């Protein structure tokens, strides 16, 4: 451990009345200062883990980074004290702050793939801080790094350091980044959503590795996440934040079992949408038959002999981890990637494989919604123009008729007519996704393909979107092909489920049957990897696994 605390028994980190502000430059207005964190206080004892939880904009990362006296962009710490090992780090000056970063406090970023320098070998980056701060010689630091690679169950720990970041998978990079943080033996590590960007089956491995490393090295940690179930696995205490203010702070058990605040209860119960499975009918209107598709002129097979059916007004959920072929199935159905073999029949007629050969009505009846709502809209068009476009294109509507229909659609997505004149940049993430839904609905489709539409959203917002989609299905009778890696979402929305693994459908049927044991090995892995809101779930899940995760 680093220097002994100045006052023997005090807490490792003691943040008092922290106030963080930022200058924002709204378009067309004078710049103004907004407050991101309002007088938040926290303490952290040596070797303990405090989870910081909240939705985006809650100030979790901002508070986490304040322990390193760091503000992203124009963010400034304007008030309060940050005591680390008994001294106020803001009084240390630039030199003092630089001396503690990478030495007393280290940081693990959300996307290790972006946080590693692509130009240098992993080992050089892992040992950089230790050498810089004189914690160890290069040889010692490299020895320590190899030991950490081994502890974090990285493959080939002796040589993985010689690789470049692009030669290592996302889950492995996240563990290398944890090793990098541990290498200089800091007193505190800030984990900023370290598993959020990973597949659910990979997340569990990385989570277990991080937890074990924290326990064995005795380092203290701030663990930041928007997923309460994940935080509950590693934290001793949890702090719930909202809009930069403290909502509730307590032991992990108390927060997830006996939340005192309404907002905390909402976070705890977020996944629970009751959805009654519809009767499986006999007449599918979309049938995918033995479809095989490949990229790179047939060299890389991404779909192998896939067959699924979609019933009118029902939802088929397609689940699997990244690379399993879920999105490729959507591309094959829409004609963006013409299948090599197999056929797709829609409303009794066989669809042309190629998009260019399809009739305008075929195009209209199949609409798509994407994960990234903000890049799926033209930033220079108003919401009214965006929703009005399919009305003009498919139905030749114009003028008052179109405006009336746009207003009607805005009502349907629970946004109100005033939004028609706004630009996408003026909407929140959830509102953007609603506009995309309205645009898809405007074409009066029979099927909407939803590709990870809630993955980029905060849990409560995602919940709202799911409820909206279910409501629209009941009203309009539209069917969904719902692509997701999140099994909780599947339970909330699906009538039937197809589980995909490496381009094949490994399990397919009505929801109740697919989710009923006995499971095949992959479905079991997938189901058992979804974090549950209970203490000790992680150890139980890891212990009970029948197959190793594929992505890693």
């Amino acid at each position, binding site marked *: 451990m680093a220097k002994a605390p100045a006052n023997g028994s005090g807490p490792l980190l003691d943040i008092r009345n922290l106030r963080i502000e930022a200058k924002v430059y709204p378009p067309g207005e004078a710049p103004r200062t907004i407050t991101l964190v309002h007088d938040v206080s926290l303490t952290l004892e040596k070797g303990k883990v405090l989870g910081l939880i909240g939705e985006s904009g809650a100030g979790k990362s901002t508070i986490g980074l304040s322990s*390193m006296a*760091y503000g*992203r962009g124009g963010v400034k710490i304007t008030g309060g004290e940050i005591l680390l090992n008994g001294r106020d780090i803001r009084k240390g000056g630039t030199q003092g*702050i*630089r*001396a*503690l*970063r*990478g*030495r007393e406090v*280290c*940081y693990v*970023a959300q*996307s290790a793939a*972006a*946080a*590693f*320098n*692509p*130009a*240098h070998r992993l080992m050089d*980056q892992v040992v*950089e*801080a230790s050498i*810089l*701060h004189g914690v160890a010689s290069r040889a010692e630091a490299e020895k320590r790094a190899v030991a950490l690679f081994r502890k974090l169950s990285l493959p080939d720990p002796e040589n993985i350091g010689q*690789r*470049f970041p*692009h*030669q290592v998978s996302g889950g492995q990079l996240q563990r290398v980044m944890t090793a990098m943080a541990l290498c200089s033996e800091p007193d505190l590590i800030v984990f900023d959503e370290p598993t959020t960007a990973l597949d659910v089956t990979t997340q569990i491995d990385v989570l277990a590795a991080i937890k074990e490393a924290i326990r064995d090295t005795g380092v203290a940690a701030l663990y930041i996440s928007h997923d309460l179930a994940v935080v509950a696995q590693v934290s001793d205490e949890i702090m719930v934040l909202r809009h930069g203010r403290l909502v509730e702070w307590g032991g992990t058990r108390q927060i997830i079992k006996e939340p005192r605040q309404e907002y905390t209860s909402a976070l705890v119960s977020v996944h629970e949408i009751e959805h009654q499975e519809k009767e499986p009918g006999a007449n599918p209107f979309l049938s995918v038959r033995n479809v095989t598709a490949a990229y790179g002129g047939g060299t890389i097979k991404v779909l192998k002999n896939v067959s699924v059916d979609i019933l009118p007004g029902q939802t088929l959920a397609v689940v699997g981890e990244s690379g399993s072929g879920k999105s490729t199935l959507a591309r094959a159905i829409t004609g963006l990637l013409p299948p090599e073999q197999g056929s797709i029949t829609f409303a009794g007629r066989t669809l042309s494989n190629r998009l260019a050969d399809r009739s305008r009505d075929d195009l209209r009846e199949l609409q798509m919604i994407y994960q990234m709502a903000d890049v799926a809209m033209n930033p220079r068009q108003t919401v009214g123009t965006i929703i009005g476009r399919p009305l003009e294109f498919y139905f030749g509507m114009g003028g008052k008729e179109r405006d009336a229909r746009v207003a009607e659609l805005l009502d349907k997505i629970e946004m109100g007519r005033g939004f028609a004149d706004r630009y996408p940049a003026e909407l929140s993430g959830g509102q953007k996704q609603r506009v995309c839904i309205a645009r898809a609905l405007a074409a009066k489709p029979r099927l909407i393909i939803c590709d990870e539409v809630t993955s980029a959203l905060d849990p409560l917002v995602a919940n709202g979107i799911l409820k909206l989609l279910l409501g629209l299905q009941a009203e309009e009778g539209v069917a969904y092909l719902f692509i997701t890696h999140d099994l909780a979402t599947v339970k909330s929305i699906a009538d039937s489920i197809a589980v995909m693994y490496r381009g094949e459908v490994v399990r397919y049927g009505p929801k109740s049957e697919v989710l009923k044991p006995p499971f095949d090995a992959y479905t079991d892995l997938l189901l058992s990897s979804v974090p549950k809101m209970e203490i000790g779930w992680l150890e139980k899940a890891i212990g009970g696994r029948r197959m190793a995760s594929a992505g890693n």
Partner: protein
Amino acid sequence: MSNPILKLIAQRIALGLLLLLAVSVLIFAGTQILPGDVAQSILGQSATPQALANLREELGLNDPAIVRYFRWLGGVLTGDLGTALSSRQDIAASIGGRLWNTLFLAFWAAVVSVPLAIILGLLAVRYRNGWIDKTISGLALASTSLPEFFIGYLLVYFFAVKLQWFPGISTVYDGMPFLERMKAIALPATALTLVVLAHMMRMTRAAILNVMQSAYIETAELKGLSPFDIIRKHAFPNAIAPIINVVMLNLAFLIVGVVVIEVIFVYPGMGQYLVDHVAKRDVPVVQAVGLIFAAVYIGLNIVADIAAIVANPRLRHPK
């Protein structure tokens, strides 16, 4: 080195050679459509029709253009650039010494300007938006905005006429001692440096600033590295490809774009040679010099492409 990178490099070189061939066609075609007749320009306005016809026959001007092109190309490939019409001298022999002079001047201008531009670019990033950055950018832009002949005359006025430190006319000859030679080229090399500095400096600054937005720069900051180390160790290696590109463009300019400077300082290089012979309508010389300039340009751009490929760790170390 692995296979994909060798393949990419081979592709670039093959493309470069193809491009050079295309340029040679263009140069040849361009000089053919110029008004005037080579025989006429050799013999002058008073030549008799018979003498003109004889000379055309002798020079092979009556052959079809395609035959003349391949004859010329064949000569170039075997080192025979033809004979200058005005002086009746072998072009390859006269170019040899002048090309060497031009390369000598370009080399010393590059030795000064490239490291200086990159260091100034790094400094500008380190103190971005501060007074150091603004001073560097301001001075560099000012020196680029001034026409090169004006810079040349300014240098001559101050350092040759007023202070008399360096000669105002850069005479060089064979067997000149090295230091004498360096003294002779001091002013033209300085003028060239001032011309190319700003472009390279601004591009270095922009390329590094672009990289400074990356998440791994934040990682480096949170390791406690000093700002200059962050720029040097973490930003610069990732900005190298665009920097090499702009450096190569400027090196090419130092060789092929020195015409004005060479004329001002009466420096016996390629540029002056070209200007002299354009004035005399000496088509074979213009063709030969044009081809050499094109080869230099294409060659340096191939070097830039290859350097960018080699600088990319994803290509150097495939999965």
